[in-house]
């Protein structure tokens, strides 16, 4: 691939991104939480539940890119404040999406990781803006994008001076309609061949089916992913978006236990640099 001056892998050294007391690229990291911030109570309940199950970061959207302009667009600034309170209550760092270049500096004031959604992967004005931010960026793969296009988008961010980019495979559009998208798990080892940047997998949006989230999470771990991004809602039936694909806290807890067993079995061979990694800690 040409022109990946900063994103291309040239040595075995991998990008390590410290967030709170964990390090992306070295520790296996689980980011979990609701699709969107709906209220303080819902977000705090979700944060406490995922923390208790062993998640490392809280995800949650304050600005929502929706297919319909009439769908819930997110709480905006109020949502950011709620996320900051959830971090105060649980200690979990926050990953949240930013949609508008004008919002980047403000979202960075509240969040620990800025997420660029699949629909904005090639929004170059936005990429340049997050490239100037002081926070790591989680760059989701565009649903119609090749790996080369995706890595070029990472290059946009890196070239603006922000070295901390995390890639997120979230499924691509194929002719299959049973699943919402097709999770391209081959992207995980492929990305590791092509770049030094960490890659996490989103089993929620890629499958869009509750029953597939667990198996695909385990498969992502087996494929060598650096982490997972999973939707968990304290009461999925009442969720304002993606109600039919969020795990309940109980389902998430079970999944975390299975992930732990699998990782214990695979350690340390799944670590690209041969280090033992932090592993997933036992829940208290």
């Amino acid at each position, binding site marked *: 691939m040409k022109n990946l001056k900063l994103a291309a892998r040239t040595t075995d050294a991998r990008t390590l991104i410290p967030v709170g007391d964990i390090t992306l690229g070295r520790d296996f990291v689980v980011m979990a939480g609701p699709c969107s911030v709906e209220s303080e109570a819902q977000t705090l309940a979700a944060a406490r539940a995922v923390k208790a199950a062993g998640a490392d970061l809280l995800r949650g959207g304050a600005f929502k890119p929706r297919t319909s302009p009439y769908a819930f667009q997110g709480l905006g*600034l109020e949502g950011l404040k709620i996320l900051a309170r959830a971090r105060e209550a649980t200690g979990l760092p926050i990953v949240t999406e930013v949609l508008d270049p*004008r919002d980047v*500096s*403000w979202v*960075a*004031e*509240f969040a620990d990781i800025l997420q660029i959604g699949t629909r904005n992967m090639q929004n170059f004005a936005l990429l340049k803006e997050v490239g100037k931010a*002081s926070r790591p960026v989680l760059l989701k793969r565009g649903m119609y994008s090749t790996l080369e296009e995706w890595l070029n988008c990472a290059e946009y961010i890196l070239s603006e001076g922000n070295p901390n980019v995390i890639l997120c495979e979230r499924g691509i559009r194929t002719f299959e309609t049973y699943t919402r998208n097709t999770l391209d798990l081959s992207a995980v080892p492929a990305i590791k061949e092509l770049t030094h940047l960490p890659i996490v997998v989103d089993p929620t949006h890629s499958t869009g089916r509750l029953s597939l989230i667990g198996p695909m999470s385990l498969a992502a771990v087996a494929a060598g992913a650096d982490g997972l991004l999973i939707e968990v809602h304290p009461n999925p039936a009442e969720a304002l978006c993606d109600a039919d694909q969020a795990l309940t806290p109980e389902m998430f807890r079970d999944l975390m236990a299975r992930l732990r067993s699998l990782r214990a079995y695979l350690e340390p061979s799944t670590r690209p640099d041969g280090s033992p990694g932090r592993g997933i800690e036992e829940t208290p």
Partner: protein
Amino acid sequence: MKLDEIRTKIDKIDRELLVLLQERMGLALRSTKFKDTISDPAREEALLSRAERLNLDLVERSFTRQLLETIIRESKRLQGEDRPLVAFQGEHGAYGEVASRRLMPAGAFIPCLEFVDVFRGVEEGYLDLGVVPVENSLEGAVTQVNDLLTTTDLKVIGETKIPVRHCLLATRGTDYREIRVVYSHPQALAQCRGFLMRNKLEPFPYYDTAGAAKMLARENPKATAAIASRLSAELYDLDVIKEGIEDGASNSTRFLLLSREAHPGPGEKTSIIFAVPHEAGKLYDVLRLFAEAGVNLTRIASMPLRSDPGNYSFFLDFEGSLHQPEIAALLERVRGLAIGLKVLGSYPADTSAG
């Protein structure tokens, strides 16, 4: 003007009315220190008839009278409550008021322009208590206040440590993305410099943090925010866009509660000021007394004497009370060594984390 604009202006006027009413009530409370009875019918009638003379076509005379009578009635009710008047420096919402509210929750909080107004007001009996900052964890001693402490007869009867949590405030409905200019006290602006730079906001110095918040509420200028306390947001109905925007580790300010009378109880902490002759080992001799008595010092600061710039006053806070015989004896020995010893008083220690 469209409906939206009209409503924005009406909201602004309502806020202004309430801020002014708060000020009026404060002044009415202060007036009680100068009169024997609350009620003054001649003054009330003069006030009402003066307002009625105004020829306002939309504010009818009967309404004016009714409105002012309501205000006067409420004002008299407040005067009857006999709340202690607690003076602080700055506008309503200043960190001094945050400290006052913590020290005297049932007080009436009276803003003063200068620290000296707080001291003189309490000394002369126009105000009951004063709350003044003595030291900040980042900036050090508040020299004006320490200087006033050396000459006052007031007693220290309490202390509190207030965490300084700066908030970015804007009038409700302001789109944070449109903010370009931020008003506040130069020290607050300096403490939030990183935040202002990251968000491309232009700092504008203002005389007071809470004063900047009050100006926002009253004038609602476009694209403008202020940096002040959360209390300011509550007092002036402003939106807290972000709390804790200071750059460094959080800083705190220690405030003292001043009164004409000493604290009635024993207290656990004592503040003194002394000077020693300009000779080798004199300061050491005093400090040695505390060391030998096993008394823990919690603050030691020095300040040049205004009357004699070559010499220094020393401010000492320590654990222990004047009611303890061993402390009283210790201070007698200090008195023997020092040129001057001023005992500011013993008071309950603020044990909160701050």
